């Protein structure tokens, strides 16, 4: 019953989306207030309907209703409740329903909280948002219906891919989709601005929070996925340049660029056309990502769908959205002129450089991801583009970005005297280089990666600190006065320092673990004590246990580090329904290093294969990502940007000219 109601709700939502896509935008053209006003209730009802459909599907999963095809194919009555619920989106149909739910949520949010938007802008934004909704609801209903019933329900379901039965991966898609789909908001605002031929500071102030929110979700989503790969795949890799990962990384790069260029539009009323273009490109990357993942064009762990009809459908949506957006842009971007002046050395120029490097980096990832498809399509040959390519072709842009970042971030708007602005940074630069040199001198083995990485991360983090020190006139005024000044800095400034420091931490983590990781693979006999990079390991025992829906082979190792010793338990799990093994590495986490143990198979001559890794500073990668996301949140909750703030409280921008 609920399932059928869900189906009806979905179809109704589709009809409401069609109305919302057509009526308000005509109203905005003609200046009919009542037509424009339709957008608000339609957007809200649409959300309620899709929420209802989502609840119906969740219910079917929770009660294990195997008469629903999707449930039968992706669930099992023995599965833990958590994974019954997350199983809703751990498949193609359910994940597209989640996509639509999030899209509708963003639309309803603008409808509900957008009272201070000019009515024409709001009507146009919501119409464009609804057009995307129409496309994806049609995709869901006509090619990927989650509510199909089976004539003869099986007695039990075929279960969920064991790799997906994991807390990290269970919550990875919702975050990723919140980010992906959140960029639709920036896209809708960009299209609306092009129709109106007007982009101003108010527009940027509206677009930034949505982009920022999407960016925060995307950052967390990517970090979760990377962390999952780290602990689940059995050897501690955290980034593979897999096409599916790239699909989420490209929108992230574009969103990062967009966040920065929107600041310029807001503060300085320039870079308007470029910002609008970035907003279109950002969501285009989301659509390309959705296409790559959903069409099965690239097969990978994530590609659940391999139906070409679906691929073609998404391709059409992609062509209309990107083609239409860019065509509109060509005709209308000329209207977005600005006359503000800034000198070659200025915050504006710094942000232009930021955008240049991030955009080129995103383009490299895009071309690298699509290249095998392009070559196969044009020449019929099959080639691969993998991690070694991206490491070489992508990294230089990040190095340049890291080098330029502290300088660009400290330059004042309009006009800077490079010498004066650099004054607080010279010490930081010297200190960073000294740190790098020290590491280079101390380390054995000639890898330059760690010294360079450490120099760059120290430069970024200390540069951010120096920025704050000079802003609070630390050392020039009393300590209490400095603290007071720091407290009064707006949230967006705190956000900036946090996000930039997060980037520094990520760079540090990556270079440290890449340069200094130790690995040991061997056949280990019971009771044999051996050393890996200063730690001593002894395999005590291996036992068989039972989990809820899997069997466990669990080893116990004694780890000794100087005076301390502790036990670690790497596991192998064999899922009964799927007859599929997964590894559960044992990881001893600390800020300075992880001890990572993965259990292999019993060996012919007795004993077990055991892989041990000592990974220095690896957790800084995810801590950095979280700090980055937290920086975004801090900026988001800056009272000046609070979604409804601009009109209700005419808070005068704080006297902070440099930001």
């Amino acid at each position, binding site marked *: 019953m609920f399932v059928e109601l869900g189906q009806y709700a979905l179809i109704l939502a589709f009809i409401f989306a069609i109305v919302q896509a057509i009526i308000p935008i005509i109203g905005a053209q003609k200046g009919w207030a009542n037509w424009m006003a339709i957008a608000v209730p339609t957007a809200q009802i649409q959300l309620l309907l899709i929420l209802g459909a989502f609840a119906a599907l969740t219910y079917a999963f929770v009660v294990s209703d195997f008469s629903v095809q999707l449930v039968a194919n992706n669930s099992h009555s023995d599965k833990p409740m958590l994974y019954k619920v997350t199983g809703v989106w751990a498949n193609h149909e359910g994940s597209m329903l989640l996509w639509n739910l999030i899209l509708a949520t963003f639309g309803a949010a603008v409808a509900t909280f957008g009272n201070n938007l000019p009515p024409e802008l709001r009507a146009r934004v919501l119409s464009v948002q609804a057009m995307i909704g129409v496309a994806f609801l049609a995709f869901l209903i006509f090619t990927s219906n989650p509510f199909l019933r089976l004539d003869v329900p099986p007695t039990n379901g075929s279960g969920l891919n064991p*790799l997906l039965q994991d807390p990290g991966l269970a919550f990875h898609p919702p975050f990723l989709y919140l980010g992906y789909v959140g960029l639709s908001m920036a896209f809708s605002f960009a299209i609306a601005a092009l129709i109106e031929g007007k982009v101003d500071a108010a527009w940027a102030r509206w677009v930034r929070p949505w982009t920022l929110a999407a960016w925060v979700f995307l950052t967390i989503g990517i970090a979760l996925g990377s962390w999952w790969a780290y602990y689940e*795949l*059995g*050897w501690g890799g955290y980034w*593979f*340049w*897999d096409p599916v990962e790239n699909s989420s990384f490209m929108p992230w790069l574009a969103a990062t660029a967009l966040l920065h260029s929107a600041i310029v539009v807001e503060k300085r009323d*320039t870079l308007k056309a470029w910002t609008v273009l970035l907003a279109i490109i950002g969501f285009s990357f989301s659509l390309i990502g959705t296409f790559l993942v959903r069409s*099965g064009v*690239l097969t*990978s*762990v994530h*590609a659940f769908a*391999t139906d070409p009809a679906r691929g073609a459908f998404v391709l059409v949506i992609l062509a209309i959205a990107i083609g239409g957006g860019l065509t509109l842009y060509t005709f209308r971007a000329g209207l977005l002129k600005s*006359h*503000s*002046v*800034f*000198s*070659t050395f200025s915050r*504006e120029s710094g942000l*232009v*450089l930021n955008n*240049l*490097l991030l*955009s*080129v*980096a995103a*383009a*490299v990832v895009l*071309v*690298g991801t699509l*290249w095998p498809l392009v*070559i196969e399509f044009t020449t019929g040959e*099959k*080639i*691969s*583009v*993998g*991690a*070694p*390519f991206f490491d070489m*072709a*992508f990294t230089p*842009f990040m190095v340049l970005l890291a080098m330029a970042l502290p300088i660009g971030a400290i330059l004042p708007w309009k006009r800077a005297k490079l010498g004066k602005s650099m004054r607080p940074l010279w010490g930081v630069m010297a200190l960073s280089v000294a740190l790098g040199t020290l590491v280079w001198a101390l380390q054995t083995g000639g890898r330059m990666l760690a010294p360079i990485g450490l120099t760059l991360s120290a430069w970024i983090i200390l540069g951010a600190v120096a920025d704050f020190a000079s802003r609070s006139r630390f050392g020039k005024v009393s300590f209490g006065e400095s603290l007071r000044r720091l407290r009064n800095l707006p949230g967006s400034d705190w956000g900036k320092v946090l996000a930039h420091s997060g980037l520094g931490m990520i760079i540090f983590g990556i270079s440290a673990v890449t340069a200094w990781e130790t690995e040991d*693979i*061997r*056949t280990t006999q019971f009771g044999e004590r051996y050393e890996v990079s200063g730690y001593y390991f002894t395999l005590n025992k291996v036992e068989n246990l039972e989990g809820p829906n899997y069997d466990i082979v669990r080893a116990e190792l004694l780890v000794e580090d100087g005076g301390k010793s502790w036990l670690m338990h790497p596991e192998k799990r064999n899922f009964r329904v*799927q*007859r*599929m*093994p*997964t*590894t559960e590495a044992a990881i001893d986490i600390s800020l300075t290093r992880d001890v990572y143990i993965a259990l*292999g*198979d019993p*060996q*012919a001559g007795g004993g077990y*294969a055991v*892989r041990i890794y000592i990974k220095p500073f690896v957790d800084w990668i995810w801590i950095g990502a979280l700090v980055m996301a937290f920086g975004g949140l801090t900026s988001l909750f800056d009272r000046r940007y609070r979604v409804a703030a601009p009109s209700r409280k005419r808070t005068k921008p704080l006297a902070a000219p440099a930001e």
Partner: protein
Amino acid sequence: MRYLLLILMLASPAMAVEPSEMLADPALEARAREISKGLRCVVCQNENIDDSNAGIAADLRVLVRERLTAGDSDEETVQYVVDRYGEYVLLKPTFFGNNLILWLTGPLLLLLGGIGALVFIRGRAKPQPEEALNADEQEKLARLLQD
């Protein structure tokens, strides 16, 4: 079908590099590991043979070690594999032919974008010519100035 393939791959008992495959000579083994990281497991999705659990990846790992033990250089070993499995196994495409477009995308875009950005920034450094007022606006201005 691909899903099935995936399950089969993951179900294979091996687990990336096995102790039994490894060479006794640490220098040679280190070279083998490095080479393995650049070779694609042909039945996997974007996975190198060093990380892969698939049977064919294990065969290739052993093959690489055989060539190295036989005295081949790193390049000869890679070439040996490419000759048998095609360029598909190279995770880093060759710097040659069509692939030049791939490799040069970044540098060329940086160059073009850099020139564009520089032109834009230099253009901004000069005061912008104010747009001439049209008759209507001039009239408005005149009226304002009178008040």
